[in-house]
């Protein structure tokens, strides 16, 4: 299980010298199995950077979308395998009770927002409404709705070698008088329980959160509290606010580590970071 961070920014892609260390691409994480299984978590602008060292080996890709906010799907139109007629691409995503995933994705992948229509993509494209759990190659994948405006899922991906939970947009503290609450009343708990790597929303500082309650995101302190509750082994903070420069992020992380008792490892998600469970 090889996990590559292709985009860790939230809300809006950004570029410039101040964002070089952690990167400016929006949410995308590639998870590759030793059997060649290729999962991609979200299709933010980072998906464009996915490299295929040996394209002959990979003929199927599964993209798991957490939700359909633009920063999580914007890279789709620029993802080369969608234009490869020999490639089989499965997109798993949420559907509303009245609209199929095809219809929802077509709002972006059609003029005037995008020149190429979803129907015109040359790859072998399969769209799936999100499942509760499914085996994709060597990976056991569980999808579960979590607290974020609109229909939003989090994922747990496990292999025999390791497990990750991916909750890039998540506000489990919303409406909670005390956070964290009991595990059974905490959004996302089952997905993250005991995982090796927890990718979790940590978009805001405590001061920023005060004016953004209900926007669907967490503070770094809430992410740490959630990680402690779930007994995740390592927390990767994710969905960095576009206004947070590298210097800001380093300070926010240092301050959070200093002010929280840390039974776990905490790392700020950085583009190109690779984790391996082999």
């Amino acid at each position, binding site marked *: 299980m090889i996990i590559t961070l292709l985009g860790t920014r939230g809300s809006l892609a950004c570029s410039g010298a101040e964002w070089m260390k952690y990167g400016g691409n929006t949410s995308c994480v590639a998870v590759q199995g030793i059997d060649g299984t290729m999962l991609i978590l979200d299709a933010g602008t980072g998906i464009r950077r996915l490299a295929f060292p040996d394209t002959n080996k990979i003929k199927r890709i599964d993209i798991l979308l957490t939700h359909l906010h633009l920063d999580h799907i914007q890279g789709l139109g620029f993802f080369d395998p969608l234009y490869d007629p020999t490639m089989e691409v499965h997109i798993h995503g949420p*559907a509303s*009770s009245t609209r199929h995933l095809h219809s929802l994705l077509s709002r972006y992948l059609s003029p005037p927002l995008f020149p190429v229509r979803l129907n015109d993509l040359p790859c072998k494209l399969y769209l799936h*409404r999100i*499942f*509760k759990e499914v085996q994709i190659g060597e990976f056991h994948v569980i999808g*579960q*709705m*979590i*607290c974020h405006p609109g229909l939003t899922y989090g994922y747990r991906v496990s292999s025999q070698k390791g497990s990750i939970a991916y909750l890039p947009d998540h506000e489990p503290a*919303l*409406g*909670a*008088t005390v956070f964290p609450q009991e*595990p*059974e*009343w*905490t*959004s*996302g*708990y*089952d997905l993250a329980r005991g995982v090796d790597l927890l990718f979790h929303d940590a978009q805001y500082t405590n001061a920023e959160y005060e004016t953004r309650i209900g926007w669907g995101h967490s503070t770094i302190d809430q992410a740490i509290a959630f990680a402690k509750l779930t007994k995740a082994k390592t927390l990767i903070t994710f969905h960095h606010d576009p206004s947070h420069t590298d210097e800001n992020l380093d300070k926010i992380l240092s301050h959070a580590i200093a002010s929280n008792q840390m039974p776990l490892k905490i790392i700020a998600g950085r583009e190109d970071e690779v984790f391996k469970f082999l």
Partner: protein
Amino acid sequence: MAQKSIEFILFRQFASYISSAIFIVDVSNNLVFCNEAAERILGFRFSETGEMSKNEWLTILVPQDEKGTILEEEKIPLFITHKTHRIAHDQLYIRNIHNEIKHIEMVSFPIIDEITGYLGSGIFIQEVKG
């Protein structure tokens, strides 16, 4: 204990913030939450009882008619919702744990998700005054 579904979690948070009396039952009619306003009518503190099985809460909350005859389940909105997965409404009386008789209105509605279907019910109750 397994995590509750997000629908229950969000509904409980919503219920915690409002002064309308609400309680929530799961797919087996076990009581999984009631807010403070509902506690005042039902006569117990949820923080003390915690979750209760259907059999447990039916021993401390006895649904009855105006003559004190115990109601059959098919006449009680929350059981109608459980059976039909449809909204139900009626007036009834309950005898609570303090032996108080309360005349209440009850509106019960199904909590349904796209994948699992019926998850349980939300029940609004209000005392009938006068």
